[in-house]
């Protein structure tokens, strides 16, 4: 009796394990693409953005704005690529606080790198905007006000 129960449990365990692995293998093309952008974005963020904006996107006091203002990042989604590439000057209000320092430009970054960074930022630190791909970046970067 005991052995029967154990065997049943083993079968259930084996089935569920294989089911989970099948589901994982069946991750859609879109998910994989998103994961690729996000992972690359994190690497690029650590290199180019983290020094100032922090590992948790927390910014620095009243000097460097945090990246946690979901409303700002949603409303300015089209401008984020331009900000990463050309930097920022002048006053902005983030989480109700005014910031007025200069953000340096990153002209060396390619469209796909910028797309990865924007994907990472807009899906980290409490943000959840989904994929921002190289086509989005290409379009937005043509319309920069610089």
């Amino acid at each position, binding site marked *: 009796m005991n052995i029967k129960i154990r065997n049943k449990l083993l079968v259930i365990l084996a089935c569920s394990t294989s089911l989970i692995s099948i589901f994982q293998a069946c991750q859609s093309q879109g998910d994989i693409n998103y994961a690729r952008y996000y992972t690359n974005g994190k690497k690029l963020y650590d290199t180019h953005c*983290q*020094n*100032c904006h*922090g590992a948790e996107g927390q910014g*620095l*006091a*009243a*000097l*460097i704005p945090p990246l946690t203002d979901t409303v700002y990042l949603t409303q300015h989604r089209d401008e984020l690529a331009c900000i990463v590439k050309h930097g920022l000057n002048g006053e902005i209000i983030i989480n109700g606080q005014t910031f007025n*320092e*200069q953000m*340096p430009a990153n002209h060396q970054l390619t469209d796909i790198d910028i797309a990865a960074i924007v994907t990472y930022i807009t899906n980290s630190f409490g943000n959840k905007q989904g994929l921002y791909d190289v086509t989005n970046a290409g379009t937005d970067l043509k319309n920069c006000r610089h």
Partner: protein
Amino acid sequence: MKFTSLSVIMILILASCSSDNKKRLPILGNREPVEKTVDGKLVTDTLYQTIPSFRFLNQDSVAFTDKDLDGKIYVTDFFFTSCPSICPVMHRNMMKVFQEYKGNDQVRIVSHTIDFKYDTPSKLKAYAKKLGAESDQWQFLWGNKNDVYNIAEKNYLVAVNEDKNAPGGYIHQGWFILVDKEKRLRGAYDGTKPDQVDQMIADMKTLLDEYKDQE
């Protein structure tokens, strides 16, 4: 028998504890032996590298000298306000040191700008305010290029320089240098690494305890 071995172990543990309590930080930098005569006998003493006298302007445009650090232990770093690379990390970490020792009159933080052209005292004042570091305990110092670069490289042993190709126009190391009340170097920590800064916060306590013992 068992009891004996157990008590031996206990004694060993206790012994190791008490030696931990007397932990002292090393003295860094150059040193040279000096011979002098004490009571008619020739003795050899060690002369440690110390921070010489200096005079800079602080964020209130008031002269700040080595005398203002008499009887204090302090941490020094080199930065500039428009620095796009390691400075924000350094001061994010230094903020932790500041919070930890806020109100302790034996502790100071001294940040030197290496951007002698742009970082005038009023710029430093605005920076300190925005950083949330408006306090006598944290001094932001401005000086001419020679004075600042000299004290950085010769006395604090931190490399700084102008470099047109570097982001922001300057290159520098992110060391936090811990100096004791005798103005000797007692520690150097990578100010960009949170774990090293935590170590420094702990070492500052060890250093302060040295003076407690002397009282």
